[in-house]
C-alpha cells in the first residue's frame, strides 16, 4: 500500500516536472515577440521574421546572435560592430539622441560604412535589406516605445562661389571644427588624440586630407547631414542648433577644399590663394542675437 502511494507521488512529480519543463520552453519561445517588427522605406515593407535566415548567414559573424555586436569576429575588428540592443546609430537624418528613420538604416546597409569592416549589402535585394532592417530593430524595445526623430530639412544645394567658400572657412574656425579635425583637416587638432566613443574606446576624427568618402555617405548632402545631426555614440556633436542652412552649405563647400580629390571648390580656393585658418587669431564676429532653443526633435 505504502509503496503504491510512493509510486503515485513519484509519477505525479515526474508529470508536473515535465509539464513545467515544456512550459518553460514555450515561454522562452514567446520571448521573441519583437519578431513581429516591421520596417518601411519608400514602397517597401520589411518583416523581421523573413530576415532571420539572412541575418544568420550574413550578419551574425560580427553583430552576434543577440545583436549585441559580440559576434565571433568582433574581437578582430576596429571599429567594433554595432550593438543593436542599444539602438544608438551614427548615420541619422534625425536630431541627436533620437532614433534614426528606417530609411536611414536602409541607406546605411546599402552603402556600407567607410573605414570599417561593414561592406555594402547592395548585392542583396532591396526586399532582403528592408527585412534585415526590421530584424536589426527587433533587438531593442526602444523601437516599440519611441518614434524616430523628425528628419532635418536639407534645402537645395546653392551654387558654389568664392564668397561661400570664404564664409565656410569662417564657420570652420568659429565652430572650432579644427580642435579635432585640425586646421587643414588632417585629423591632428589639439583634442584629436584624446577622443573616445561612448564605450570609452579610442576613436579618431575624420581625416579630410586623406579620405574622399565620409562615414555616412559621400555626397554634399551627406556631408551636410553628418555635421548637422552629429554621429551619436561618438565625440562628433550635432551642430543643427547653431548653424543656419545657408551657413551649413558654406561649410560643406569649404570642407570640400580640404579633400584629396579634384573638386570645383578646391579649384576656386586655389584661385583665391586660400590659406589654412590661424587658430590663434581672434574669433570671427559672432552671430546675430541668440534665440531660445530647446532640445526637442524639431528641425532647425
Amino acid at each position, binding site marked *: 500500500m505504502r509503496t503504491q502511494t510512493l509510486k503515485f507521488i513519484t509519477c505525479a512529480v515526474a508529470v508536473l516536472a515535465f509539464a513545467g519543463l515544456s512550459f518553460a520552453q514555450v515561454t522562452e519561445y514567446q520571448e521573441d515577440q519583437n519578431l513581429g517588427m516591421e520596417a518601411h522605406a519608400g514602397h517597401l515593407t520589411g518583416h523581421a521574421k523573413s530576415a532571420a535566415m539572412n541575418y544568420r548567414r550574413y550578419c551574425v559573424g560580427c553583430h552576434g546572435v543577440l545583436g549585441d555586436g559580440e559576434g565571433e569576429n568582433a574581437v578582430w575588428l576596429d571599429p567594433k560592430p554595432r550593438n543593436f540592443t542599444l539602438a*544608438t546609430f551614427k548615420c541619422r537624418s534625425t536630431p*541627436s539622441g533620437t532614433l534614426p528613420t528606417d530609411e536611414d538604416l536602409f541607406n546605411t546597409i546599402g552603402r556600407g560604412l567607410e573605414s570599417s569592416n561593414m561592406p555594402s549589402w547592395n548585392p542583396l535585394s532591396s526586399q532582403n535589406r528592408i527585412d534585415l532592417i526590421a530584424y536589426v530593430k527587433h533587438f531593442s524595445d526602444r523601437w516599440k516605445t519611441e518614434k524616430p526623430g523628425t528628419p532635418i530639412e536639407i534645402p537645395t544645394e546653392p551654387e558654389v562661389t568664392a564668397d561661400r567658400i570664404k564664409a565656410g572657412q569662417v564657420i570652420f574656425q568659429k*565652430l572650432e571644427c579644427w580642435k579635432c579635425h585640425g586646421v587643414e583637416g588632417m585629423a591632428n587638432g*589639439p583634442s584629436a588624440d584624446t577622443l573616445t566613443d561612448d564605450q570609452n574606446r579610442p576613436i579618431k576624427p575624420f581625416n579630410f586630407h586623406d579620405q574622399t568618402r565620409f562615414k555616412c555617405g559621400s555626397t554634399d548632402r551627406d556631408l551636410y547631414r553628418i555635421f548637422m545631426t*552629429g554621429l551619436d555614440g561618438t565625440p562628433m556633436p550635432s551642430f543643427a*542648433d*547653431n548653424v543656419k542652412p545657408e551657413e551649413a552649405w558654406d561649410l560643406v563647400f569649404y570642407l570640400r577644399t580640404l579633400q584629396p580629390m579634384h573638386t570645383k571648390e578646391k579649384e576656386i580656393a586655389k584661385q583665391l590663394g586660400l590659406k589654412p585658418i590661424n587658430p590663434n587669431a581672434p574669433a570671427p564676429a*559672432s552671430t546675430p542675437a541668440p534665440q*531660445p532653443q530647446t532640445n526637442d526633435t524639431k528641425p532647425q
Partner: protein
Amino acid sequence: MKKQLLFKAMLALSAALILSVAWMVSQRSVKAAPPSESSITGTVKLEGTPPHQRPIDMSKEPACAAVHKANPVTTENVVVGTDGGLKNVVVYLSEGWSGPETAVSSTPNWEQHGCQYIPHVMGLDVNEHFKVINSDPTSHNIHPMPKPGGPNHEWNKSQPAGAPPIDTSWPAEEVAIHVKCNIHPWMSGYMVVVKGPYGVSDDSGSFKVDGVPPGNYTLTAWQETYGAQTQKVTVAAGKPATANFTFKAK
C-alpha cells in the same frame, strides 16, 4: 481720531509685510510648500584622508587657463571643505516619496565656465528643466552619457561661444548621468536625476532637502567616487528632520 490713523498705518504695514513674505516664498526654488511639509537637513562628512586631486593642465585652451591663473584647478572627484565636510553629494528620497511627478521646477543652470562644469554635480527631478550655458569664449560639445539601453538617451550637441542656452530635461530617474566635453577631455560632471525633492551638499558638507511631507523615508546620499549610502528617516509635520552621513576615504 489719532488712534484710528495709527490703526490704519499698522494695517498697511502688516499688509506690506505679508505681501513681501509671500513674494519671498514665491521666489524660492521649490514650489511653495503647504504648511504641513517639512525639510531634512544634515551634513555629509568624509572620514580619513581624501584622495589626491590631480592638477588639470588647460594650456591647450589658453582662454580657460587664464580663468584659473590665480587658483590652479584640480579634478573634483572628492572635494572636502571645512571640518571634513564633503561637497557635491546629492541627497534624495529613494523610498517613500509619493508626491507629484515633477515636484521641483527650479530650472537650474549647468554652466560651462573656465572649461569646467558649474556645478560639478547637479541634482534634478524627473522632467525638471535645466539650462546648459556656455559662458566661455570657446566652443564646447555637451555630451551627457546615460546608461546605454536605458530610458534616458545619450545626446551630443555643439555649443559655440555666444550660442543660446539649451533648455532640456531627463524623462527618467538615473543616478548618475556622466557628462563630458570631447573637445576638453578633462571636463567631467554628473547629473543626478531622482524622483522628488533633493539637496546637494555645499562646501561645508551641509545639505537641505525641501518640500518633504510627513512620513517615513529612505534617504540616500550619492557621491561620485564613494557611491551611495542610505538611512531611514522619519519626518514629522512642521518639524525639520536631521540626517548626517559619513563617507570613509578608501
